[in-house]
Every structure is written in C-alpha cells, then in structure tokens.
C-alpha cells in the first residue's frame, strides 16, 4: 500500500488550520491579539523585576535615609536625584521597594496558584473519575468554600493560622482551590466517556494511567487559562490581606502593606500610596490580558 501523503483533505470552513505543530498554531492566534501581547510584555518585565531585583533596584528596600523623608518623584519639585520615584515616610526608596515588592507579589501569586492547582487538579481528577460518595463529599466541600466570599475566607484562615507571608499564600491557595476542583472535575466528566479513553481502557490502562496520562492532558487548556487569571486574583487577594495588615509584616516591601502604611499622606505625598496601587493595577491587568489571550488561543482549537 503506497504511503499516504501528509495533510488533510480540503478544509471545511476554517482553512487557517494548516497542519502545523500545536505550538506554532497557538502562537499565530495568540500574537494576533494585541492586548494579549501587551499583557505578555508587561508580565515578562515584571517577572524580570522579580528575578533580578537585587541587581535592578538602586537601593536596598529596607534602608532608611533619615535625611530624605517623603521626597517626591524625580519629575516634581524638591525631588532628590538619588530616589527616582521618591521616598516613603521613613525615608526608604520607593522604586527599590516597588521592585522588591514585585518579587514578593509575584512569588506569592506563583506559590498560591501552584499549591491550589496541584491539590485542586488532584481532587478534581479523583472526584470526576471515581464518582460515588467521594465525589459528592469533595464537591460539597468545594461548594461551601465557593459560597463564602473570597476575602472573608482568606481573612478567616489567616486569623486562625496567624499573619505572615507564608500563611497568606496558604490562605489564598485555599480560597482558589474549589475553582480548580470544579473545573477539572467538569472536564474529566466530559472526557472520560470519549472513545480515546475507552480505547486506552481496552488496551488495559489502569485508573492511574487513565487519570494522569490519558485524561489530564486534555484538561490542560481550561486549567492554564484559569491559572493565569487566578494568578492576578491571587496577587489582588494577597495585596488586600497585606493592606489589612494580615500579610507580610513590616518592614517587608509588600505592595498591599505599602498602600496601607501611607493612607494618611494621600493628600500631601500622594506618590507613597498611589505608586504601589498603580503597580498592583498594572500587574493584575497584564495577567488578565495574558489569560484572555491564552483562552482565545487555546480553547476553540482544543475543542476541535
């Protein structure tokens, strides 16, 4: 029998999908979305700040310059050329604190999302695959967690385990957990009756292989989107906790805490609280745009 040519026969009505690798096809759709690309660029810059903070920041975030308290940013009158974005009430360089704050915020977001994703996917896989009373139990717990307002739940958790950076991560992870459980379980329920899963069962695959090797890769797309959007939610939640004094404790340069610590100066030295607020805003916006772009590029193709 002669070897067949590569490539499908003529397209139905979506001829953009030539037979390229999934990576190339994904990039084509993603890069056409300008908002998504902007989000990606900003996100990369932020990640660079977080990774190379010690080299990028002009000063230490903790050092207090007693002679330069509440200095305004460089473009305003009375500024000090050493401090591009001004200083805070105890003389710490705002730019350096923002850069180090990126490290805290992004790190926090990453750890929370990773924790949440790992446990959420695991529980979702088990619930969706096994069904029965285990499924019902997991889902009812998830329902309870979702029913409680996210921030209140986070506060409650921190109130129980104590305020600190690590505990903030755990609290935010718990708040996001049920969403991943639900999402994974829904996808598992949808995929487990598909013929390719049946084919693997007939080949002799056991439950572990079926869950992790066969079904899980097909849940990836919605999970990636949710994780990226969840990242920005995590940063926002963490900032909120920091604002309430329940997150990273002073003198750590955490954006939410920085916001809270300068409220009284909002009229006289607006930069001390507005700039951290702007940083939070930009970060959340960037990851939201990125997540939207990912969703557009990933979802319809994987629905085939």
């Amino acid at each position, binding site marked *: 029998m002669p070897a067949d040519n590569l490539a499908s026969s*003529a*397209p139905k009505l979506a001829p953009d999908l030539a037979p390229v690798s999934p990576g190339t096809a994904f990039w084509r759709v993603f890069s056409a979305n300008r908002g998504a690309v902007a989000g990606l660029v900003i996100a990369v810059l932020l990640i660079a700040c977080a990774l190379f903070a010690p080299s990028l920041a002009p000063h230490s975030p903790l050092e207090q310059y007693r002679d330069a308290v509440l200095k305004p940013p460089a473009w305003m009158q009375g500024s000090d050329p050493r401090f591009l974005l001004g200083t805070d009430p105890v003389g710490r360089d705002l730019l350096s604190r923002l850069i180090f704050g990126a490290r805290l915020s992004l790190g926090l977001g990453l750890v929370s999302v990773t924790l949440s994703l790992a446990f959420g996917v695991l529980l979702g896989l088990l619930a969706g695959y096994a069904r029965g009373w285990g499924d019902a139990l997991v889902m009812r717990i998830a329902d309870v967690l979702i029913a409680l307002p996210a921030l209140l739940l986070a506060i409650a958790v921190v109130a129980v385990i104590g305020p600190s950076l690590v505990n903030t991560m755990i609290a935010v992870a718990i708040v996001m957990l049920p969403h991943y459980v639900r999402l994974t379980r829904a996808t598992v329920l949808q995929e487990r009756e598909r013929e390719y899963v049946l084919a693997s069962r007939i080949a002799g695959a056991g439950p572990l292989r079926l869950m992790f090797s066969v079904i899980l890769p097909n849940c990836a797309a919605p999970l990636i989107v949710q994780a990226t959007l969840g990242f920005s939610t995590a940063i926002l939640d963490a900032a909120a906790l920091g604002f309430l004094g329940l997150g990273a404790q002073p003198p750590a340069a955490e954006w939410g805490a920085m916001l809270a610590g300068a409220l009284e100066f909002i009229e006289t030295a607006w930069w001390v609280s507005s700039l951290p607020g702007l940083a939070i805003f930009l970060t959340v916006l960037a990851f939201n745009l990125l997540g939207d772009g990912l969703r557009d590029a990933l979802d319809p193709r994987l629905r085939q």
Partner: protein
Amino acid sequence: MSLLEVRNLTVQFGPRERPVIAVEGLDLELDAGEVLGLVGESGSGKSVASLALMGLLAPQARVSADVMRYDGRDLQALSARERRALLGREIAMVFQDPHASLDPCFSVGDQLMETLAAHHGGPRAKLREQALDLLRQVEIPDPEARLKAYPHQLSGGMSQRVGIALAIAGNARLLIADEPTTALDVTVQAQIVALLLRLQRERGMGLILISHDLALVSQLAHRVLVLYAGQEMEQGPVPALFEAPRHPYTEALLRALPEHNRGAARLQALPGNVPAADARPAACLFSPRCPHAQARCHAERPALEGPGDARVRCFFPLADAQRHPLGAPA
C-alpha cells in the same frame, strides 16, 4: 425553463497570496422539476458550493461567478435583504444533521410557525393550521402531539422530516439537500428518500441532492455531477453515467464499491489521497492517482468538453474498450 444557472463559480478562503481554493470553475444548471445529484468525497467542495449559492458562507470566503442566476434573477446583484427574502422562500436547504439544524430551545410548532410567519404572515390560528398541514405532508404521525414536542424528543428520522417541513414551508421551488440521509438508519433513509421524491414530484421543485452515496443518488437523480478537489470532473444523465462512466475518477469510485467486487478477495481501491486545498498542482488534479494518466495529464489541466448535459474533464476519457466491466475485478 432554467431554474438555476451558474457559470464559473469559484470559492476561495484564506490570504490572497496563498488562497485555499474550495471550488473552482463550477458550472451548474437546473430546470424546474429536475433532480441533480452532486457527488464527491471529502474535499470535493460539494457542500461549499451549495452554501455559496445560498450566500451562507462566512464573510472570509471569496465567492465569484460569471453567472449566478435563479429564475432569471442575478443572485450576485441582490442586496443582503433581497437575498434573505429569496432564501427560505424560493430556495431552501435541508442539512445532514437534523438535530443540529433545529433549535433545541423551541418546540417544533414554534419553529414551524415562526418560519411560516416570516414567509406568509397571518393570524396565529391560521399559522397553526398551516404547520399541522406541513407535518402531515411530511408524513409525521400524530401531528398535533408533535407540534408541542421539542427537537430532543424526536428521533433522527422525525427530526429530518421536520427539517424538510421547515424547508418547504415557504413553498420553495429549489431545494438543496446536503447529505439529508447520511445520519439516519437505512430503513428510515428509504422513507425519507421516498418522501423527498414524492414532494419533489408533487411540487415540481428543482432538487439538488448532495451526497457521497452513489447508489442513493442513482435512485433519485436525473443527472449527476461528479466533483473532485473542487472541480467538476464529469456530468451525465442517470443511469448512463453509472453504466458507462467516462472519467477515470468516476470509474474508480464505482469500482471501489463493495457491490462491484462480489466474489473478489480484495476491493479495487483507489490509492492515494485528495490533494490538499492549498497545494493543488497545475496539472490535472486527478493525475497523481489516475491509472490511465499519460504525460500530458501531468503537465496541463484539461478543460470541460462536451454538450451541456454530458461533460467530462479529461484528455483521454474512457472508451468502452478501456472500461473494466463493473463487477469483474481489474
């Protein structure tokens, strides 16, 4: 009188520098009361051609034709609103998946009456009567009960009958049926075929039947047009086309059917694949797979030759001597 006249229909997708050509240079004629079978496999462009006629292709399709006339009216010169008025009323379409073409949120009666209201108008009671009448015409048992039913409560055969009812609600004179029975059981298929034939004859409709099932088309059509990779390869009357095909592709299709290989251990399969829509050679599109291809076939593309109702696109159309008697393996 000619109901439909199309000359040089071409449908392209994608960027202009590297277009994906779904249909190329298609000529089609249909008279009232005639049944034309449009036969082809995946990638032949048969569905795209019918959607182009109806103006249903997405905006990214580039449709062009020298002539596209329905009942003497130039379809390409119509405004969007005029085209919509024509669709459904004069030209109607029946699709392959009956459940996909009915709205799952509305009852059968609602959908029928909505279509009737759009085309005929009138008070609700009268619309209901007309809807009941339509259901009776498509031989749905117990039509009063079916009016209130939702599409998911109907079987495949029933849903397709409702689809046909929707199509004839506007008293269409041209019906395009795209694989109307492919998704149905064989016994139900026979019923739908009989229904389509009866409706077509009673109403003098022109019917374009698109299908990959050659036997089905041979039962219904007066004339058959064979498409391959977007081009017409052969057109001829039934049964002459099936008894004495002139294009090697038509013959290969017929020879691959199990019923023409009775007693043989292997089917006479046609090797290879349809060329991809964005990589079509400048030579005869079928030449890579043609068992009779010669040097000229690999160099240039043949044009359609022959009178209006018996055309073939081949430099060396099959003569009787070359044709293997169908039923005996080569």
